[in-house]
């Protein structure tokens, strides 16, 4: 850890827009030494990805300007380098992996061909030799049966395998620096863990440096030697990893460290009054094949689950993607067809038809994960929040309705001025507040929270969780809290259900399940996401 590999000196990046220039990065300086892991941490919009892309000058020159700064690599200033020179560096000396492995791999080529591409380009290899190397690389990144997998298309691989293939691609030319832009954000917790381990191992073997871009402080603690914290286009703090976590100096770093979801379990004693009780819930999706769409099998998304939700209680449902947790939630609210018995208070809703369900729909509402797709972009906030009122409280006149909308908006922390605006004019956190307002205005009994904070920055996540538990106490709401993030679930739930492949692995009070797990799977999950 001595030699400076790359030096970034007061880098500035501006975006040219119609409304004037926007300064995305305002004078950022940092170094990366050889064989060092550096992390840039920041929330969305802090300029961390822009900085990373600038190292390779991957921005579209029509939209981006570099008014100031130098990037010294190999005693050359990359800022002055021409496009041809940059092409020579990209992929060969410095390579990059991206967040979404599905979209960063080309779906029409086998992964092997995509790995060979850089080899053919930079090392002037012929195809058969490159193929051999590609198989070796896939083996090195821990993909089993690399001989077969080299010919697989991206969609045939799992998310973790895809990210491994991406890494293999990035490693093809033995780069001296690997830029990893949120490499694990789209992956399940246990897989995240594995990918980081892999990166660390590879780094040890090859002696390359890694620049990790992330919003997740925990990732950094485990991984990086040095951390730069970015806020609004500036590096506010730069320190070695151990130092930073022990003694954060800048208040923003402290704020980020504090925004860990704190325990918010509402202090009401959950009564024994049951709101939803479900027995033997099954949701099977048929797999059909051939011309006549013969049923050849079934996907057991939810397989014989008994569940009970009490008044004023938060029931956490955790599991990795594909475990059936969202399907279970949707089945309980009769949003997907299922077999089995579901009781809501005195209604046997599993026997109700869609028409009979409609008047009851007011009592169970949903808040979705992605606040960008859950609000209709062509409706104003007033229309969005007021829609359910018109439907379920037709007796209200215009002013009463208006007052109620304004009151609810205030309750979720938005002001009256929001009424006339469209969803796209709000930030992610505000949008999620609107989505919450849309549900609580109907005075429901149950709210299904489907990953309500996963798409949000940590600090915003904390605020939204706070709002949710406040509302829970105030209105005696029961929450079905679906999440893959055990930290959030631990902070919010009274009881928790761990799901895997459509079945319940373990359930019980949150402390007992997460701190003293009885099952191996729960233990792995807890270890991957709870231990720093």
């Amino acid at each position, binding site marked *: 850890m001595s030699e400076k590999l790359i030096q970034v000196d007061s880098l500035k990046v501006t975006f040219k827009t119609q409304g004037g220039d926007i300064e995305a990065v305002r004078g950022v300086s940092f170094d990366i030494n050889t064989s060092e892991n550096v992390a840039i941490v920041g929330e969305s919009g802090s300029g961390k990805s822009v900085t990373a892309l600038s190292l390779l000058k991957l921005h579209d020159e029509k939209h981006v300007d570099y008014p100031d700064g130098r990037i010294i690599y190999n005693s050359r200033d990359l800022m002055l380098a021409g496009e041809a020179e940059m092409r020579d560096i990209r992929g060969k000396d410095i390579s990059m992996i991206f967040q979404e492995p599905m979209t960063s791999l080309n779906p029409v080529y086998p992964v092997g061909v995509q790995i060979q591409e850089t080899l053919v380009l930079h090392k002037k290899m012929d195809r058969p030799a490159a193929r051999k190397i590609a198989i070796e690389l896939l083996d090195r990144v821990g993909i089993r049966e690399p001989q077969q997998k080299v010919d697989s298309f991206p969609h045939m691989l799992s998310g973790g395998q895809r990210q491994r293939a991406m890494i293999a691609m990035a490693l093809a030319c033995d780069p001296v620096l690997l830029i990893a832009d949120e490499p694990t954000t789209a992956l399940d917790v246990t897989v995240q863990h594995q990918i980081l381990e892999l990166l660390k191992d590879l780094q040890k073997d090859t002696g390359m440096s890694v620049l990790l871009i992330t919003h997740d402080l925990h990732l950094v603690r485990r991984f990086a030697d040095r951390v730069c914290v970015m806020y609004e286009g500036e590096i506010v703090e730069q320190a070695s990893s151990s130092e930073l976590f022990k003694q954060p100096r800048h208040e923003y770093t402290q704020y980020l460290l504090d925004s860990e979801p704190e325990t918010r379990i509402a202090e009401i004693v959950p009564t024994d009054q049951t709101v939803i009780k479900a027995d033997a819930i099954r949701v099977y999706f048929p797999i059909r094949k051939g011309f006549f769409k013969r049923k050849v099998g079934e996907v057991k998304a939810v397989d014989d689950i008994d569940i009970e939700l009490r008044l004023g209680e938060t029931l956490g449902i955790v599991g990795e993607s594909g475990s059936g947790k969202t399907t279970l939630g949707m089945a309980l609210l009769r*949003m997907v067809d299922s077999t089995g018995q579901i009781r809501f208070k005195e209604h046997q809703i599993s026997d109700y038809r869609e028409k009979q369900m409609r008047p009851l*729909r007011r009592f169970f509402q949903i808040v979705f994960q992605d606040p960008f797709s859950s609000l*209709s972009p062509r409706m104003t906030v007033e229309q969005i929040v007021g829609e359910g009122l018109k*439907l*379920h409280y037709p007796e209200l006149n215009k002013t009463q309705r208006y007052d109620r909308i304004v009151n609810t908006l205030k309750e979720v922390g938005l002001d009256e001025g929001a009424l*006339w605006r469209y969803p*796209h*004019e709000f930030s992610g956190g505000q949008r999620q507040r609107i*989505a919450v307002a849309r549900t609580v205005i109907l005075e429901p009994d149950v709210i299904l929270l489907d990953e309500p904070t996963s798409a949000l920055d940590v600090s915003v996540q904390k605020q939204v969780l706070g709002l949710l538990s406040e509302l829970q106490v105030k209105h005696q709401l029961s929450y079905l809290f679906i999440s893959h993030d055990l930290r959030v679930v631990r902070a919010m739930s009274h009881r928790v259900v761990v799901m895997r492949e459509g079945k319940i692995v373990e359930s019980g009070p949150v402390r007992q399940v997460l701190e003293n797990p009885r099952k191996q799977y729960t233990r792995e999950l807890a270890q991957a996401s709870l231990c720093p």
Partner: protein
Amino acid sequence: MSNSTNHVHLSPGRRSWLRFRSNRRGYVSLWVFSILFLLSLFAEVLFNDKPLLVSYQDELFFPFLKSYPETAFGGDFETEADYSDPYVRDLITAGDNWAIDPLIRFSYNTINFSSELPNPAPPSSHNLLGTDDRGRDVFARLVYGFRLSVLFAFALTAIGVAIGILAGAVQGYFSGRLDLIMQRIIEVWASMPELYLLIIFASIFQPSIWLLIVLLSMFGWMGLSDYVRAEFLRGRNMDYVRAARAMGQSNMAIMRHHLLPNSMTPVITFLPFRISGSILALTSLDFLGLGVPPTTPSLGELLAQGKGNIEAWWLSLSTFIVLVGTLMLLIFIGEALREAMDTRKR
């Protein structure tokens, strides 16, 4: 978000209007087109061979609304008075009698018998844009033809869009088997030769504007329904639709309030092209002689005459200008409309 506070209290409709106005070209086009269209709606008052008001022996007559026999003005015939006849003209303007005439004293069917030159006659002080090969005033025919074309286009577009949205929405929202069946029906229907049908029907029935609307509407909706179907298919899985279902909204309400506004992009984008396409369809059918009956004023018929009398430049040139001008105005308006409907644009 700070710069959006200045239109905090504007209603959604008002904001759309502001967005529309921000496109100067579209805004000006809308004004020009509206004025022209409005004037053409009153073509009977502006272009007519009958006076608007006649005072004959202290009695008021409204010849452009009502038909009076020549005898009413002291003439000889029991038939309707021909006001361009110098004899009748003398009768209604002699002594205390007076008549108020329209701006141009030709209707689309008036034949100028007093023309000094053989027909088609070039522009003169009598016929500002000349006459066609039957001695009818080109200016009057253009104005009436413009009106007919625009009304026809509006009607055809409205019907096509309505059926297209309905069919596309039903297919996209319910999808599955219903979608499959309708899709096959559409494929069969779309492969029918439209032009042959028109020729066949034109020989069975009396050709008229209504027949054309019915026939063209039967085939005009299919292009659009595909796009609307795709938008609905995409939209039905969005979270906001699921949220509306969770709220207990009925299928109809979800389709109308949630999916439709979000599926309007293809409808709005194609709207100007559909309107101009309809105008062109009518014009070309008339040009081929498959359209409206020959007495009806139409741009296509004028173009056909221009082709037949290639030396009569006033026929083809003036029709060409009217046609191109109309199409351009409509396209510009459509462009601004598209921007106005985009709520994401400031």
